[in-house]
Every structure is written in C-alpha cells, then in structure tokens.
C-alpha cells in the first residue's frame, strides 16, 4: 500500500508538470491549430537559462527565475514573428516540420553552450521531508504541485475575466469573427507563444529543482506531453490538466508494477500505448471538440 501511494504521489507531481506543459500545447493549438513539437526544447532552454543566470550573477533565485520568464516571453514572441507567421496557410506537414527543425536548432544551441553533462541545480526547495499520513514527502514536491495549482488557477482567471484572455478565447472560437471585432489576431498568436514558452520554462525550473539538475533529456518531456494533450483533448485547457494528472499517475503505476516483469522501460512507453488506445477509441480526447467528418 505504501508503495502504491508513493507511486501515486510521484505521478501527481510529474503529472502536474505535464499539465503545465500541456497547457502550453493547448494554448498554441487553440489559437493557431499548430502542434508545437518544440515545447520540450522550450522547457529545457528555460531550465538551463534559469540556472545559468543564477550561477553567473549570484542574484537571489527568484530574481533569476523572473529573468527566465522575461527571456521566455521574448523567445515566444521571436519564434512566432520570425518563423511561424510566414507559415500561416501552409500544409500541416510543413508546420510540423518547422517546429521539429526549430527544436533541432534549440537543442543544438543548448548543447553548444552547456554541453551534454548534467548542470546541477541549486537547492531551491527546503530538503527536510514532510510527513503526510504515514509517508514522507519531499517539500520540493509540495512546492511544485502548489505552484502549478496556483499558476493554473491564475490562467483560468486570466482566460475567464481579463481582456486579453477573452480576446484569446474569441480568436480560438473563430479567427474571422475575432478580426472583425477589432482583435489583432497577430498579437494573440504572439501572446499564445509567449504563454506557452513561459509555462514550459516554469515546468523546466520546477523539474530541475525536483531532479537536482538539468540535462538534454529534458527535451523528451515535450514528446511525452503529447499523449497528455490528446487524452485531454487538444483544444481543452481543462483537458490538459486532467490529462496531465491521469498520465503522470498512469505512467508511474505502470512503471512501478510492470517494470520488474518486463525488464524496464515501461514507464517511457506506457503513455504512448495509452495514446494508441485513445486515438482508436476517442480521438478527440475527454474534453476536445468533436469535429465530425466521415470519409
């Protein structure tokens, strides 16, 4: 039972970060119908930038974190302006390849600057574990789940009540109508990419804090979030959150119980097996908008 609970808690923590990165995916997909395969690279880059700023300038960690977020906003805007805007109206495959090419460039930049060794993270969370019931849980986990919850709540409020948030929802609903209402769709796209880069960077920093270091494997996170957003529905913010939690718990349980039987690696492949199942049963996910098109 303790083992089970431990797996569930690990799953919740990883799942909350999945939810955060999934939110970035969904925002981009909703506003511009692009699946961003470079999301994992945004996460990795954010994580590296944060630790680099922290060690180079010796400012308090929160300041370094703030600078990272600023960097991410600029990164998102630059990517949208320079690379994605010329691709409006191009076929899906071209846009997919563009994000894959961009991912390759970002990975190359990261590898060129920081090499392939793990860069250690400072201890940003207190190390003494807290006891929840019978289980010791590290404080880093609690902090990261807490910040994810706060962030997701903040974004829900933003989408529901703020001017920009309402404009984003209008654009997602229909770009033409939004344009005729005086909303600048270009600015909304830039905003969407900035938000996606920011939430990924937050995910990267939290992950770096939990794991105690950052390396090139962080980029794979982007691919593992794809099953999450498909499960939740590509165009549903709530879906990304629910999907993230479910997928995080699922992969940890599968890894914990099936790895000894099958000899390792189940944790990595489980989300993708689930993905095949979801796609063949319910391709638009739990909360996605069903587009009926029979051929």
């Amino acid at each position, binding site marked *: 039972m303790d083992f089970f609970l431990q797996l569930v808690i690990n799953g919740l923590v990883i799942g909350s970060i999945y939810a955060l990165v999934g939110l970035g995916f969904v925002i981009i997909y909703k506003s511009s119908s692009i699946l961003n395969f470079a999301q994992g690279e945004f996460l990795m880059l954010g994580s590296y930038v944060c630790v680099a700023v922290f060690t180079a300038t010796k400012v308090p960690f929160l300041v370094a974190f703030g600078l990272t977020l600023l960097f991410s906003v600029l990164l998102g805007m630059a990517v949208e302006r320079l690379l994605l805007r010329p*691709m409006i109206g191009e076929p899906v495959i*071209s846009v997919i390849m563009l994000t*894959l*090419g961009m991912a390759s460039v970002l*990975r190359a*930049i990261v590898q060129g600057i920081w090499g392939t060794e793990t860069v250690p993270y400072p201890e940003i969370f207190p190390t003494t574990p807290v006891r929840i019931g019978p289980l010791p849980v590290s404080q880093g986990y609690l902090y990261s789940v807490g910040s994810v919850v706060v962030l997701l709540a903040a974004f829900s409020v933003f989408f529901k009540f703020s001017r920009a948030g309402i404009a984003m929802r209008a654009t997602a609903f229909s770009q033409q109508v939004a344009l005729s209402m005086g909303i600048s769709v270009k600015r909304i796209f830039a905003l969407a990419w900035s938000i996606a880069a920011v939430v990924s960077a937050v995910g990267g920093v939290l992950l770096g804090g939990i794991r105690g270091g950052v390396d090139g494997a962080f980029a794979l996170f982007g691919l593992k979030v794809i099953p999450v957003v498909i499960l939740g529905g590509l165009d549903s913010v709530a879906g990304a959150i629910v999907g993230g939690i479910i997928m995080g718990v699922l992969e940890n349980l599968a890894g914990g119980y099936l790895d000894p039987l099958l000899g390792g690696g189940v944790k990595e492949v489980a989300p993708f097996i689930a*993905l*095949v199942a979801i*796609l063949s049963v319910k391709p638009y996910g739990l909360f996605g908008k069903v587009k009926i098109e029979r*051929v």
Partner: protein
Amino acid sequence: MKCGDFRETYVEDMAIFETAFARRALWLFLAAMAAVPAFAGGFWLDVVNRILIAVVAATGLNILTGFTGQISLGNAAFLSVGAYATAALAGKAGLPFPVVIPLAGLITAAVGMVFGIPSLRLKGLYLAVATLAAHFVIEFAVTHWDSMTGGVNGISIPAAAAGPLSLDGDARLYYLILPLTVGMLLFAKNLFRTKVGKAFVAIRDQDISAEVMGVNVFKYKLLSFGVSSFYVGVAGALLGYQARIISPENFPITLAIDQLGMIIIGGMGSILGSIFGAVFITLLPELLRLVVGPLSATFPQLTTLFSSLKMGVFGLAIVLFLLFEPDGMAARWHTIKNYWKLYPFSY
C-alpha cells in the same frame, strides 16, 4: 521552332523523359554511377552506399507523405523492422539475400499496414501523433524481445550471400544496392502513372472528393502504407547488410525526423525530390566535417561542438527551406531547367 514547353498528346504528357536527350543523359549518368567504385575509396564509397539506401527510404516516405498526404513519424521504426527482419532471416534462418530482401520488405509492409489502420479515422496532426506512438511502441518491442533482436546489445548480420556469392565489402555491396535503388525508383516513378498512383494523389489533394469519385479511400490509404513500408523495409534490409551490426540506438526518433527533412528539402510529391533530399541530408554532415576538419586546428573547441553544429545546421536547413523554398529542391531544379530550356527568351 518550339519556344515553350508544349505537350500535344497524352502520351507526351505521361512520358517519363521529355526528350531523347534526357533519356541519354540518364543512361550516361547511370554508367558513371556504375563506375564509382573504381574511383571512390573506402570512406566515400560507404557514403555513396548510405546515400543510395537513404534514397530508397526517402522514396518510400515520399510515397506515403508526399504523394498520399499521410504524415508519418514512424519511419525510423519501420526501418528497424526491415533491418531486424534481415537479421532474423539471414542470420538465424540463413536464407540468401534474393529471398531475404523482398521478405524483409513484405514483413515491414505488413507492420506498416497494421499501424496504418488508424488512418481510417485519423488524419493530419492526429495521424502524425499516432505514428509517433507507433515509433515508441516498436522501439520498446525491439529493445525487449531479446531472443529475436539481441535487445540493447544489438545483433550482428552476416554478409549478404547467395550460394557461393558473398557480397562482403562496400564495393560488392554497391553493385547490389545501385541496381536495386534504380529499379525501385523506376517502379515508384511508374506507380504514379497508374490508377493506384493517381488514387494516392487524389486522396492527398481532397479525400472527400476522392471518395465521391469512386476511390476507396481506406483501401488506398492502407495500400499506400503497405507500398511505402515495403520501400522502407528494403532500405532497412540494405542498411542491415551494410552496417552488419544493428542495435536500437541506430533507429532513434531523430532518424525519422531526418527522413522527413529529406522529403521536405528535396520536394514533397516528387521522386526526383526524394533523391535530392536524401543526397543533401546524407552529405550535410560529411561536408560539414570537411569544413570543420581544417578549421579545428585553429579552433580546437570545434571538435567538441561538432555534434551540436551538425544538429543546428540540419534544423536551420529545414527551417530555411520551409520559409524560402517550401516546394523543395525539385521545384528549384525545374525552375532552373525551364530557364535554360527557353534561354535566351525566358520570360
């Protein structure tokens, strides 16, 4: 005198070669290709072999993605199926290569068609995601089926042999790979002059209209997955014979992205484009090495940066092509050719 590109009959329109000159030039080019082992030594012959294998794989992917419009991120996995089938058929069963290569292709075609079934309901992004899942599922199976695949340690493949004939060494293998590549390119070129090929293109352009006009969309989509995977499987078999030892590390997801890069840069929906793209992407790291080699004497840090440089240049090439020449090198080739055909009245 003709002062334009006129096609006056359907036969002319369907012809592979527009002029007799083009046909003779191709024969000359093939003769030159056949003489390559006499001039190219070990390293460059190996590169040429890899290019030819990449041409077969890229043509396969182009049939599926470029001509039928079904995006596939599972190509690296299908390549590994072909290579591991070769390991089993040639290594464990000891079959000769004329049997092994088609069988490896057929096995891969079967696997490809199984993973093509979701294309009945999925298209575009969702199909890309489904084939991405196929990649990881096949990779997991390959890593864990130790008795068949040797797991993470890999498995060795004997030299391609048929009776007393043994194709060990790059030069001998070259004379297997070259005719096979030419034959498969010819088949692909002709495929798109037949009903089946036209059906593929119709599905790519508008699947609903294709269905309305009597094309059985699901059947032809599945067939496209089959033909494409057959090509990829043959490429995998050749890759196995050439590499002689394969492990799951040879088939990462980045390989699938490389191959998509080939058809994007070369030109989607063009056989010539698959050739251009495969040559470009395979040569890119080698040329980069030639440039970096002399420079690394003065900048020693370049050697450590080489792998990231390679990755960055590859990504940049894809991005720049998509932004400035989205139809790929084949389109550019046609522009240049037409310019000279009508020179000096080219406007």
